[in-house]
C-alpha cells in the first residue's frame, strides 16, 4: 500500500529522517515508536505532503504523494489539533469532513452511532465549539473524523496520549478491527510501548531518523522493545 524510497529530510546540517526503504502492505496495522525527535511526526507529515522531502519519495497506492493529490480521497489522518476547526461544533465538523469525503449527513450519523460508547456522552449535543472541548475530547473527535468516508489509509499520531483509560481500551479495539476486518492500513505512532504492542502487528522503531528495528509483533516484542529503550 505504502512504499518509502530513499526518503530523507534535512534541516540545514541536521538530518531528521533517513529511510532507505519501507514497505507497508495493505491492511496492516503499523506501529511507529521512538523517543522525542526520532522522526515519527516528520514521517507522517511527509506521508501527508505537509512537508517536502529533501530526497526520495513516498508512494501511496501508486500515487507519489509530493507529485499528485490523488492520494487524498483514500487517505485520512489526525496528527494534532491543527486538524480540527475550532469554531465548529463536533457535529458540524463531522458533517464537514463527511461532505469533503462524499458522505451525506445520514451516512455520517450512521457511522457516529457506532462510536457512542467511545464518545461517552461528552461529544455530541454538548452545545460547545471544538475549541472549548478538553484536549482528550478534541482528540476523540479528530480520531473519529479520520474514519469518515471509508479511507484505505488512516494515519494517527499519538492517538493514545491525553485519552482516559476507558477510551484508550476502546480505541485499541477500534484500531484492531479496522485493520483486521475492513482491510484498512492503519499507521499509529506512540510513546506507549504497551499500547502499540497490543494494537499493531508490526512495529518499527525509529531512532534519530533511522529505522533501527522492524519487528513482527509477538509475545517477546515487549521485552525486546524495553531492552532497546532502556539503552
Amino acid at each position: 500500500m505504502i512504499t518509502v524510497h530513499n526518503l530523507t529530510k534535512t534541516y540545514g546540517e541536521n538530518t531528521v529522517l533517513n529511510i532507505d526503504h519501507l514497505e507497508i502492505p495493505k491492511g496492516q496495522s503499523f506501529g511507529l515508536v521512538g523517543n522525542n525527535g526520532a522522526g515519527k511526526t516528520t514521517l507522517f507529515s511527509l506521508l501527508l505532503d505537509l512537508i517536502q522531502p529533501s530526497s526520495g519519495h513516498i508512494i501511496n497506492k501508486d500515487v507519489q504523494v509530493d507529485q499528485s493529490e490523488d492520494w487524498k480521497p483514500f487517505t485520512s489522518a489526525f496528527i494534532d489539533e491543527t486538524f480540527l476547526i475550532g469554531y465548529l461544533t463536533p457535529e458540524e465538523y463531522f458533517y464537514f469532513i463527511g461532505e469533503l469525503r462524499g458522505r451525506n449527513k445520514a451516512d455520517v450519523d450512521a457511522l457516529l452511532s457506532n462510536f457512542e460508547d467511545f464518545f461517552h456522552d461528552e461529544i455530541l449535543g454538548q452545545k460547545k465549539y471544538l475549541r472549548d472541548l478538553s484536549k482528550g475530547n478534541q482528540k476523540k473527535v479528530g480520531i473519529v473524523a479520520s474514519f469518515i468516508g471509508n479511507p484505505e489509509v488512516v494515519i494517527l499520531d499519538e492517538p493514545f496520549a491525553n485519552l482516559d483509560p476507558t477510551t484508550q481500551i476502546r480505541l485499541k479495539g477500534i484500531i484492531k478491527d479496522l485493520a483486521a476486518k475492513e482491510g484498512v492500513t492503519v499507521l499509529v505512532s506512540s510513546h506507549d510501548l504497551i499500547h502499540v504492542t497490543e494494537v499493531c502487528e508490526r512495529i518499527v522503531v525509529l531512532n534519530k531518523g533511522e529505522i533501527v528495528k522492524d519487528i513482527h509483533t509477538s509475545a517477546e516484542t515487549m521485552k525486546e522493545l524495553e531492552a532497546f529503550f532502556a539503552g
Partner: protein
Amino acid sequence: MLKHFIGLQWKSFFRSATFKTEIWFKILMALGALYFVVVFLGMGVGAFFLIKEMEIGDPLRVVNQFMIYYLAFDLVFRYMLQKMPVTNIKPLLYLPINKSKVVNFSLGKTVISFFNLAHAFFFIPFSIVLLVEGYPPLQVVGWHLALMAIIYCNNFINVMVNNQNVVFYVIAALFIVAGASQYYQWFDITIYTGPIFDFFYDIPWTAIIPWLILVGLYYGAFAYFKKHMYLDGGLAKKQTEAKTENLEWLDRFGNLGTFLKNDIKLIKRNKRSRSAVIAGAFFIFYGLLFFTGALEVYDGPFWKIFAGIFVTGGFLFSFGQYVPSWDSSYYPLMMSQNIKYREYLSSKWYLVIIATIISTILATFYIYFGWEAYAAVLVGAIYNIGINSYLVLWGGAYVKTPIDLTSNKKAFGDKQAFNAKTLLLTLPKLVLPIGIYAIGHFLINPMAGYIFVAVFGLLGFVFKNKVFTMIEGIYKKEKYKTLLAYKQK
C-alpha cells in the same frame, strides 16, 4: 521581585515572533508612531490658537465643554484595542509569589500603556500654552492634574468592564444618542458636563476629587482581579454556547457550498473575522468623504474611481486580503483532506464576489449625489469583481501571517501582512484603475473613463479560468512555506 517581572516583560516583548520583522518595516512603524506623536503635539499646541481664531469662546472652556466626548472616545478606543493585563498571569499562579504582587504588577503595567501616555502629548503642550498665554498657573495645574486622573480612571474602568459587552454597548449607545441630539440641537449634554471640568480649573484644589476616585477605582480593580485570579474565574476562557447550524440552503452549490457554509460560520463565530467584516462594512460610507465634497483634496476626478473601489471593496480588502490566513489554525487539515485547491480558492472568490455585490446594492444611496457618483461605485464594483478579486487571492498566497481567530489583538497593523510582494500588489488594485480612468478622462470624456475601467474589469472576468490556474499554481508552490509559517504562532 519587580526586577523579575520587568525582565519577563522585556523578554516577552523583544522575543515575540512579530517583533522579528524586516528592518525597514520597523523603521516604517517608528515613523508611524512619530507621526502620531507629532499630530498629538500639533493638536495640543495648535488647539488653543485654533479655537481662539474661531472665536467661539475661551479655548479652555471650549475644550472643557467637549471634554466629555473626548473621554468617551477614549473609553471606546480602549475597550476595543487595549489589551487586558491578565495575559501571562497563569504561569505565575503556583510560584511562591504573593498574589497581590502579581495583581499590582499587572495593573501597574497598564499605567504605562500607550493608551495613557498618548494623552500626555495633547494635555502637556496644551497646558503649557495656557501658562504661556498668562492663565493662572495654580488653576492650570489643578485642571491638568484633574484630567490626568480622569484619563487614568478611564484606564481602570476599562480594566473592570472588559469583556462585559452589555455595559460597553449601553455606554456607547448613550454617547451616540448624546452626540446625535447635540448635533440636532435637541439636548446638549455638554451644558451639564462642561461645568464639571471648569470646576477643576476654577477651584484648583478640587483636583483631589478625581484622584480620590482614581485611587478608589484602582482598589476596585485590584480587588476584582485578586478575587478572580483563578483558572475557572477571571482567567478562564469565555465560552459561548454553541449551536449546530446546518445552513442546508447552501447544499445546492455542491462542494462549493461546503466551503461557503464553513466560511459563514467562520465569520459569524470568531471575533477577529467579525471585526474584519464590520470594518469592511464601514467602507461603504467612505465615499461620502469624496462625493459630498467634505474634503477638498478629494475633489479631483480620479478620486471618484478611488472612492468607487473602496466603497464596494470593503470586504475584499478587509477579509479577502487575509485569505488563506483565516484558515491558518487548521491549514494542515485543509491540505491533507480531500480538497482540490481550486475548489477552495473558488469558494473564497465567490464569497468576495457575493460581498462585493451586496455592498454595491447597499451603496445605491450614492445615486443621491448624482449619476456620476453612482457610476463610479458601479464601475468600482465591476473592477473589484473582475480584477481585484484575483489580486487579493494572489496576494494572499504571500501573506503568511497566522491569524488568531479568537482575539482582536493584532487586528490593526499586522506587521507581516505588509511584505514587499503584497505592497506591490496593491498598486494594480488602486493605482491601475485610476490610471485607466485618467486615460479615458483626458483623451475623450469622463464617461469614457468609466467605460474603460468597466471594460477592463469585464476582461478579467473572461479570463477567470486562466487566472485561477495561475493562482492555484502559486498557492501550490507556496504551500510548504505557508504551512511552516502557520505553525509559528
